[in-house]
């Protein structure tokens, strides 16, 4: 009945992005660079660039995390990132907005997401930067898996703490 099951994860795909006027969103397997994302939103009409860097924590509720891995439904996640960016660009009259998310294994303490927004005045940029992060955490089709000494969990932002345990003998990767 099943014709082409595929058990192994697809190979790393490097970087995929969408660029539109005032908008840059990207998913990448490479380390993130704050300067290059700032350059994506730099504008002579802007009086402020606000940036946010989300970094990977070494514990969850005091329990040591040994590594973190992000996976994604890339085409859908890019579509969602682009839609979030587009609505904030309009809502806050931004000059530019850029969001990049790293995928694959991210070493502890490194950046997993960068957001940069530019606007004529700082208030709009502060607000838009925070909203962009909250929207991403709620909607973007990226999943974080935390590995502990005694197994791994898929984290869920929705409830903040209760991911599903990866069951013994039921590991998909």
């Amino acid at each position, binding site marked *: 009945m099943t014709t082409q099951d595929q058990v192994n994860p697809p190979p790393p795909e490097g970087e995929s992005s969408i660029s539109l006027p005032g908008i840059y969103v990207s998913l990448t397997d490479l380390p993130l660079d704050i300067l290059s994302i700032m350059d994506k939103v730099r504008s002579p009409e802007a009086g402020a660039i606000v940036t946010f860097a989300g970094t990977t924590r070494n514990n969850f509720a005091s329990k040591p995390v040994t590594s973190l891995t992000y996976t994604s439904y890339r085409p859908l996640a890019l579509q969602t990132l682009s839609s979030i960016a587009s609505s904030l660009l309009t809502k806050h009259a931004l000059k530019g907005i850029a969001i990049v998310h790293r995928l694959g294994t991210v070493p502890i303490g490194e950046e997993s997401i960068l957001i940069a927004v530019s606007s004529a005045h700082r208030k709009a940029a502060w607000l838009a930067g925070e909203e962009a992060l909250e929207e991403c955490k709620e909607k973007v089709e990226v999943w974080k898996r935390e590995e502990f000494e005694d197994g791994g969990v898929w984290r869920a932002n929705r409830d903040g703490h209760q991911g*599903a345990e990866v069951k013994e003998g039921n590991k998909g*990767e």
Partner: protein
Amino acid sequence: MSATPKPAAPGNFTILYFATATSFTGKNVESLPAPLSLRKLGDVLEERYKGIREEVLGHSLVTINLAYVDVPEEGEDDVIIQEGDEVAIIPPVSSG
């Protein structure tokens, strides 16, 4: 740029699994026979992966060709998954 695997064989659609759905099925992707009523998708998956309805599907959303769809209740118009469609099971996300 796409994570999309090669198209499903004739008479099939592609279904993608992520996160807890991958862990539960042991797969990232597979092909299932089309056409299939979206309302029956849960039954088909439950038959293949006992317990997936409660453990995974109950907390997940479904997309067809990159668009979210509501799984119809009894009495509502059904959606038919067609040959070549790309369906995905979307568990609660955790970006950032």
